[in-house]
């Protein structure tokens, strides 16, 4: 159990360093082209090989961490922010508000994730910003439902009743007990969500609706590499592997936090 968290933490630490100070891990310019060194397979010189313009894929993957993580974080932030508002309205508000919000969420659920994102993109056009917002919006209902049920669960928790008996007012209970406890599961939710958001955003990029080359963003790299998949697998494999790795690491970390708070 602990090993899981350590491995996940190590991966995320690496990705975080790559995102904040890519120059430390990969000092060269991710956009510098060397046309005559294109399509080199992985070797000591280029651990992940080179792409169609002779750019070092390892360098690009590292420099892409920032953009990819930013997309994942922004999308999750958008999704969770909307969800927090909806979830708290439903969970704390009067009954009719809960009823209304719940129905609203039910309607949103009828648009499965990617479809919602596509609907958004068809309205506002493709691109990195719209695809990020689209992913955020598409994930919001799921978060909102979890937050609502967490709020309701915490609201009914015996310790809130105990606080009532101790004479704590409603505002005190919400601020000092309910919100901090909801925030705990929110943190887990965000951790689990970032990985999924990156996967979703990269899917949109892959479909040509998200980030675009030559930006060293993982989704865009995949999109650029997909035509060469049969000949030069490393162009797709490594950016894809980092997406998978990030998603797995955030999931594992989220799970460990979840398990810790649960037990």
């Amino acid at each position: 159990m602990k090993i899981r968290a350590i491995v996940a933490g190590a991966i995320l630490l690496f990705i975080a360093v790559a995102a904040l100070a890519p120059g430390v891990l990969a000092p060269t310019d991710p956009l510098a082209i060397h046309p005559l060194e294109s399509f080199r397979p992985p070797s000591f010189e280029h651990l992940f090989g080179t792409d169609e313009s002779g750019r070092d894929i390892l360098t690009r993957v590292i420099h892409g961490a920032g953009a990819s993580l930013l997309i994942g974080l922004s999308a999750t932030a958008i999704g969770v922010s909307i969800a927090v508002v909806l979830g708290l309205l439903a969970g704390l508000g009067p009954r009719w508000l809960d009823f209304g919000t719940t129905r609203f969420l039910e309607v949103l659920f009828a648009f499965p994730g990617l479809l919602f994102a596509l609907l958004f993109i068809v309205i506002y056009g493709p691109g990195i910003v719209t695809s990020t917002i689209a992913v955020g919006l598409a994930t919001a209902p799921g978060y909102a439902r979890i937050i609502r049920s967490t709020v309701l669960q915490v609201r009914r928790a015996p310790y809130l009743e105990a606080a009532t008996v101790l004479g704590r007012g409603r505002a005190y209970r919400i601020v000092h007990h309910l919100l901090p406890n909801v925030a705990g599961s929110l943190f887990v939710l965000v951790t689990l969500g970032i990985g999924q958001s990156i996967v979703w955003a990269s899917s949109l990029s892959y479909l040509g609706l998200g980030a675009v080359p030559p930006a060293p963003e993982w989704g865009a790299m995949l999109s650029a590499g997909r035509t060469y998949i049969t000949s030069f697998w490393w162009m797709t494999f490594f950016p894809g592997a980092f997406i998978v790795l990030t998603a797995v690491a955030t999931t594992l970390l989220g799970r460990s936090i979840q398990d810790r708070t649960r037990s």
Partner: protein
Amino acid sequence: MISVSDLTVRFARAAPVVDGISFDVAPGECFAIVGQSGSGKSVTARSLLGLSGGTVSGSVFLDSVDLVNASARQWRSIRGKEIGFVSQGALVALDPLRTVGREVGDALRLHTSLSAVEQSARIQSLLSSVGIPDPSLRASQRADELSGGLRQRAIIASAIALQPRFLIADEPTTALDSTVAAGILDLLESLRASGTGILLISHDLATVSRLASRVAVMQGGRIVESGTVDDVLRMPRHPYTRQLIAAVPAGTPRHAPLAPPPRVGNSGPGAAAPPAQPSPAVSARPGPSFPTMPPATRPGVGNEGPGAANPVAEPAVEHPGAPGPEFSTTVLAATGLVRRFGPRLAVDDVGFQLERGRTLGIVGESGSGKTTVARLVLALDKPDAGTVELFGRPWAGRDRREARIGAIYQDALSSFDPRLTVGQILSDAQTDGRSRRADVSELLELVGLDPSIAARRPRILSGGQQQRVSIARAIAPSPAILVCDEPVSSLDVIAQAQVLDLLDKLQRELGMSYLFISHDLGVIRHMSDDVLVMRDGRVLESGPTEDVFGAPQHDYTRALIAAAPTLD
């Protein structure tokens, strides 16, 4: 004849959970193993069925069959056929997704070649033989459509489907209402009388004494004492046995300690309340002064009750000046309380008075409405009719700080905010929510906990320690009334004894009034000055405890008393 000798069970490389025990059970005999949770008694029971999941050594023989070295095939022909098993947890031992008929019929399906029709007929006759009315309907229902008693009967039916010669009953009556439990014990007794050998596993000496002829007391994986029930109960030789016996509240007079006087300062937090390990000083300590408790608002100190045997000095606190002798000593009065849930009357015209410094016990079985009464009194719920008055004033939940009414609950752990440490919880209570960093060591010492426990989170504490923290939190704002809703129902008998002693001590020191709710007649009788017997939301009878139980007026009260296990 089941004979066990030198049975040892261990899991992985840890110390053995069952450590070299020996006993035997003859047909038509009930042999009991008594011990607290973690003593190894359930593992012993399972290892007789080859289901312990650990490494088993020593020898277990069913007549001449070597069970320790039995093959999987042999086991399958023994389980259910030769040895029946009535498992722990009546409410969870039936698969909620399968019908009762299927669960009961499993043994028939596995071990006989009966046709479906024959099986179904046999299932119904089995169900009626264990006292389940309307067996054909019940067979088609699932576990959650049955009451706890019916479920336990169904489990017994499934265990005896093939008339095994031996029955292993692991806590067969735990979590059942006492009248229901009595019925189950009667059923087991009739099986024993018809020649079935029974190995009874229980934490409750009183239950054991009703059914078993011989008993073994287990502690830490070993049998520390064994013999006939009479010998062990009358002349316990081992200190642990004595402690167990002493801890039984039934029959112990009010205010008499249940746990031996504990020694000071060794309550290792986190330790799973080892039974022999007493809590820190309670009675030996002088009453603490309460820095956060303004003396002027202190409740009247309990001196009305039959507190003559009070060994502790009265705390050095003044009486509140205002109330004179003509001032009513009634701190809490409920009149004509009614609470409906849909068509059901959960509470139906309940009224009572709680006097200052005294304990009013409410006893009843599940569904009697006693917890709803507690919630109404705490103003966590509004009555559909009737009133609650605190100190002569109507009370509906406003101005809780003035109300001076606190509560402790059955599940102490879930009443704590999971993010907070013990210190934060108590500091919050002590400072009226203003600080989570105040010094709580006095409060902890008052409930017999080591101050170092403040830095820990409640979930790593033992059940008894958790309940003590809960008590500390409840008394921090110096309440006049404490509502205790099943405060010891989740605790081992020794932890229960310690918590009851603590509550008793605090009542005398701080003069609190208790509304004490329990399903356990023995606990109620030990703790209460006055008592209310409830059933189906109604008060059947009430009055001073010994009057009610000494001369019960109502049939149900009599049935309760009869069903309540005692050591006699």
